[in-house]
């Protein structure tokens, strides 16, 4: 099958038919990749909801040279041959993205100083890049009591941006969903239907897919700021999963075990709860070496990586 030629921010790329604009942009890489708060390539049906990845289609295809009437979600819009897309070259897109970032923050508690996700939070990164310097809301924010989702996961609904990723993990790993969305509009909440435990060997992956600090690891909560821990690639023989993980160490102590995330913050593979929660001794692992953190994250502002000049975020 012949490839489709697409131009994103004046950079040409050839992709297979059926590719989304987002994945075409990821093929190019770098600054033209739209941010994604809800899309997750490993989760079927994800995307389209957060609207941070909106882009402008200046030309629909080589045949239909009209622009698309509205900004489109790049994660759910398929490319066509000859499509011309504008992301960071379109002031309209950047303006919309700024607005979406603000919408995501108006009910967010901004409690980064006490949030375990701080330092590796997609929303933190997004606001760092696209947020306003001041807040324009004076209203009260919606609040919920934190609840336990099973033995290992804490849900702090105040921080949730309703990306539905965890719901899709639940859909994907269990036959019987016990973890959906209740209510509607800005009253919506992730729920386990009366705090019913998510009883599945892979439920811990919900923590990793959560873009914010809504779902956190109860075995790691308040133990350390993530930037005080050092990540190491490690593996063990596991009967349930690949056993390939990242150990987050402080000295010789393993404070946390997570899956391995790529540069878009997506897990390379789901890992099992046994690896994640029950093997916190370094002797139980084969340590491969320090893990390189490649993300444009607040965490990377420290000593993990020397950002080359063109990648440096604005001061």
């Amino acid at each position: 099958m012949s490839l489709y030629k697409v131009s994103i921010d004046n950079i040409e790329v050839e992709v297979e038919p059926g590719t989304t604009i987002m994945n075409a942009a990821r093929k190019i890489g770098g600054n033209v990749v739209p941010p994604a708060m809800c899309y997750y390539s490993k989760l079927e049906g994800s995307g389209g909801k957060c609207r941070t990845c909106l882009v402008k289609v200046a030309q629909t295809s080589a045949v239909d040279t009209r622009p698309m009437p509205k900004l489109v979600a790049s994660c759910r819009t398929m490319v066509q041959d000859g499509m011309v897309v504008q992301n960071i070259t379109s002031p309209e897109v950047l303006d919309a993205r700024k607005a979406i970032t603000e919408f995501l923050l108006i009910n967010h508690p901004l409690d980064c100083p006490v949030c375990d996700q701080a330092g590796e939070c997609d929303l933190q990164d997004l606001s760092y890049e696209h947020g306003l310097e001041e807040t324009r809301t004076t209203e009260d924010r919606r609040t919920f009591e934190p609840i336990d989702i099973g033995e290992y996961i804490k849900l702090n609904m105040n921080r949730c941006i309703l990306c539905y990723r965890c719901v899709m993990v639940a859909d994907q790993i269990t036959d019987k969903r016990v973890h959906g969305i209740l209510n509607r509009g800005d009253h919506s909440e992730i729920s386990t239907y009366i705090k019913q435990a998510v009883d599945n060997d892979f439920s811990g992956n919900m923590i990793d897919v959560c873009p914010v600090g809504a779902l956190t690891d109860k075995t790691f909560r308040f133990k350390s700021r993530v930037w005080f821990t050092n990540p190491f690639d490690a593996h063990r023989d596991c009967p349930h999963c690949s056993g390939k993980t990242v150990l987050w160490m402080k000295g010789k102590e393993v404070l946390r075990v997570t899956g391995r995330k790529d540069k878009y913050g997506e897990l390379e593979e789901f890992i099992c709860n046994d690896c994640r929660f029950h093997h916190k001794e370094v002797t139980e692992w084969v340590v491969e070496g320090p893990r390189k953190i490649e993300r444009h994250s607040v965490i990377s502002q420290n000593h993990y990586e020397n950002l080359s000049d063109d990648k440096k975020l604005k001061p």
Partner: protein
Amino acid sequence: MATKILLENIEAPGLATFDCYRKLGGYASVEKALKSLSPDSITQEVLKSGLRGRGGAGFPTGMKWNFIDKKSDKPHYFICNFDESEPGTFKDRHIGQLNPHQLIEGMILGSYALGARSAYIYIRGELFYVLNIIEKAIDEAYQKGFLGENIMGSGYSLDLYCQPGGGAYICGEETALIESLEGKRGNPRIKPPFPALVGLYNCPTVVNNVETIANLPWIINHGADAYAALGTLKSKGTKLISACGHINKPGIYEIELGLPVEEFIYSDEYCGGIRNGNQLKAVVAGGSSVPILPAELILKTAKGEPRLLSYESLEEGGFQTGTMLGSGGFIVMDHTACIVKNLLTFARFYHHESCGQCSPCREGTGWMEKILRRIEAGKGSMKEIDLLADIAKHIDGTTICPLGDAAAWPVSSAIRHFRSEFEEHIIQQKCPFTK
């Protein structure tokens, strides 16, 4: 007397019963279609008639039917959208309550044209009493052989079901309706793919509004040309307008498209003028979602031509000086009405009805309501008027479904045309219309 398609016999006693409806010529179009017309020729007829969707968007019905994936070997479905919940709109209820057989007749025609063997009427949950009327009518149609196996010996079979919704405005959005009908949470789907390719149970599906479907029997009986002879160049046929607000005669009127707005408001045949001889202040012409227009712009376009009740005339001037025909919910306000208070009512509605799936609508609708509540209570600031306009601007066009646009347009238009009234609330630190 203007031609009536939908309300011709509406006052006939017992119209909701099969016998009365049949005696008045009902189901003739089904006989004609099943005996002498091919499904494609019905679609062609509807296309030629120029009938446009009466739910609000005004998309040409025949064109929508033509998008259906004819090559697909999956079953096709035809769905009637009876989730009428737009504030100010109450026309579909009128048809369902008084003339259910005309809707059923239209459903048979549409299903036959689209090759559907199962069809659904998705009715708003609050209209349960109407559901009872429709179900009774469906039962009668089954008994008389107009539904079920081998209708009138034609070999065509159709099952028709009536399904109540759970009380959500969003389920009037066609993909949310389909999700709800499938038994899921009523969240709109991300489009494309459109329902004509991937609809109910992932099969090709067409969703049409009640009024649209109720027009079909007349078009088949009288022909597309007769229908297209009614109305204006781009707005064919008649339209039900549900008029409410500060008028002498609120109610449901069937007008031939192209009727001057001035005549509609002031003539005794329709609204009968403004109550107590008051002055007209503003009109929301097509249900709460469309931009509000001040008196001078609803009666005349910016060019000074008389404004007509038609798709193209109401859209004249774009959103700067125009509006939309929408669903035909015609809300009239006289000089005693407070625009801000009215807008707050709308904003509260959209906040309550947002499904919460996408960020701009979920967060923005609530934010707008809170700001409007403050301004109406006299506790707003001048800066907040601009903030409100800015929020509306950024919801508009960035959401998954049109609910976001529908929430944003009333706000932007009210500020565009009535900014001084917002300012008055802030200067006086109270609503100038409350004593």
